[in-house]
């Protein structure tokens, strides 16, 4: 009985991968038979070869590193500002009155629309990419932090006050944990925006990074490298999402809704 249970679990793990593998096989067959032009889509095996080649030359690693750096620095800067603004506007009505209207106005400008201006300001240097990523992740974190703080159960806050929790302790033990599920939703959403912004920014104006690698390959009709770049973005998107999920499981282990993810 135990053995069949084990194989059942393996089957369960494998099922989600069946479709992608099947698509890959069909694609490989179509391309190698010449039905699908390699100018439109390269053969999967060529993509793997291109990847191996770029790893060997060290080029891939270099581009990866620079893209990662931009993503993380931008996320940290934008995320901190969003979290800070969300917290003070959620906690202090006076701050909310002063800042919220302005923030909401700025929030409704698509941050990618600022690319021409950003290039004028920063050229195509690092600051431009970091600025765009920061501007992209700021608002989802701000909005969700604010919403999280506002929706903390008032009954729990009242209880905390009666049981002797004052200002800092009340924030640390009641308000912040209560707002955390919402804040983490913001983080997860912001991670998606982070990659999107980086792809666009690197594709339009850059001299390094994965987006640049893809654009450069396009100039030389290297569809395999273009596709490799796209797949790398997909991979990082998935990794970022898994990290966010892990963070949720770790921070919200008290919440029955997050226990079986």
């Amino acid at each position, binding site marked *: 009985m135990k053995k069949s249970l084990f194989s059942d679990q393996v089957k369960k793990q494998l099922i989600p991968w069946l479709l992608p593998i099947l698509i890959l096989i069909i694609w490989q067959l179509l391309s190698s038979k010449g039905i699908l032009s390699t100018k439109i889509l390269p053969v999967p095996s060529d993509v793997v070869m291109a990847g191996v080649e770029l790893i060997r030359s060290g080029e891939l690693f270099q581009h990866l590193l620079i893209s990662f750096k931009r993503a993380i620095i931008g996320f940290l800067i934008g995320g901190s500002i969003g979290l800070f603004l969300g917290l003070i506007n959620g906690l202090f009505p006076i701050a909310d009155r002063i800042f919220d209207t302005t923030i909401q106005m700025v929030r409704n400008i698509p941050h990618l629309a600022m690319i021409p201006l950003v290039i004028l300001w920063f050229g195509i240097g690092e600051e431009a990419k970091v600025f765009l990523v920061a501007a992209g992740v700021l608002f989802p974190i701000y909005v969700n932090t604010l919403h999280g703080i506002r929706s903390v159960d008032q009954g*729990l806050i009242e209880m905390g006050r*009666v049981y002797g929790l004052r200002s800092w302790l009340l924030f640390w033990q009641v308000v912040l944990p209560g707002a955390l599920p919402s804040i983490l939703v913001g983080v997860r959403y912001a991670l998606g925006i982070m990659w999107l912004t980086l792809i666009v920014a690197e594709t339009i104006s850059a001299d390094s990074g994965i987006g640049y690698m893809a654009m450069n390959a396009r100039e030389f009709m290297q569809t395999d490298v273009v596709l490799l770049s796209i797949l790398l973005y997909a991979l990082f998107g998935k990794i970022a999402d898994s990290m966010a999920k892990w963070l949720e499981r770790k921070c919200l282990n*008290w*919440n*029955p809704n997050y226990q079986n993810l």
Partner: protein
Amino acid sequence: MESPTFGTHLQINGVEKHFGNQQVLRGIDLEVQPGEFVAIIGRSGCGKSTLLRLIAGLDEPTAGEIKANSELMKGLNPEVRIMFQDARLLPWKRVIQNVAIGMKKEDLPKAELALKQVGLIDRAKEWPHVLSGGQKQRVALARALASKPRLLLLDEPLGALDALTRIEMQRLIERLWKEQGFTALLITHDVEEAVAMADRVVLIEDGKIAMDTPIKFPRPRQRGNAAFAALVEKILRRVMGEEENTPAVYARQST
């Protein structure tokens, strides 16, 4: 057992509370002796919960004064604890951390003792959401008593429990009250509960005290007792605003 003067001596003089044009409390005078158990009953919306919030210091009276041990109350009083209608446990803290809320680290044994007194020490490491409604209220009781309050305010804490769990909780609260000697103020809409637990039953009607009846039955009280049932019915009729002689249509069957 604590000394008989451990509990708070509560004096409420001419307390009024207005919310805008609405006058919720219209001059309440009430004195509660140290260690006394007083039940406050009344229909919903009569102002009994408002009175409790004023005593706790969560709100301020529009007029009048509230004194604890002859001292005028200002803001939240650290001697006072409330047990709410819903348990209000922090879902992100384990049971024992919930009981120890607002306490210093070295006071953890006090929290453990309180949890032991309500019989839930073996659930100390659980998350609150796995507990039943009755267990949650027992944790809330442990939390209220862990810091040895001198005045315990009970805001219909048993209203949402099933009948058996409720009687069990009433006995537990009565026992701990006798052991620890705090002053207790119980808000309830259940007249039988009030008569079973309190030294005095106070009725609030239209923001005023309309009745103040001492309950002299010896403890532990027998609910099946005819005198007990008669008193419950008499008070119930008074709450419903009926004449003494009309049949009590609303009188509940005694258990």
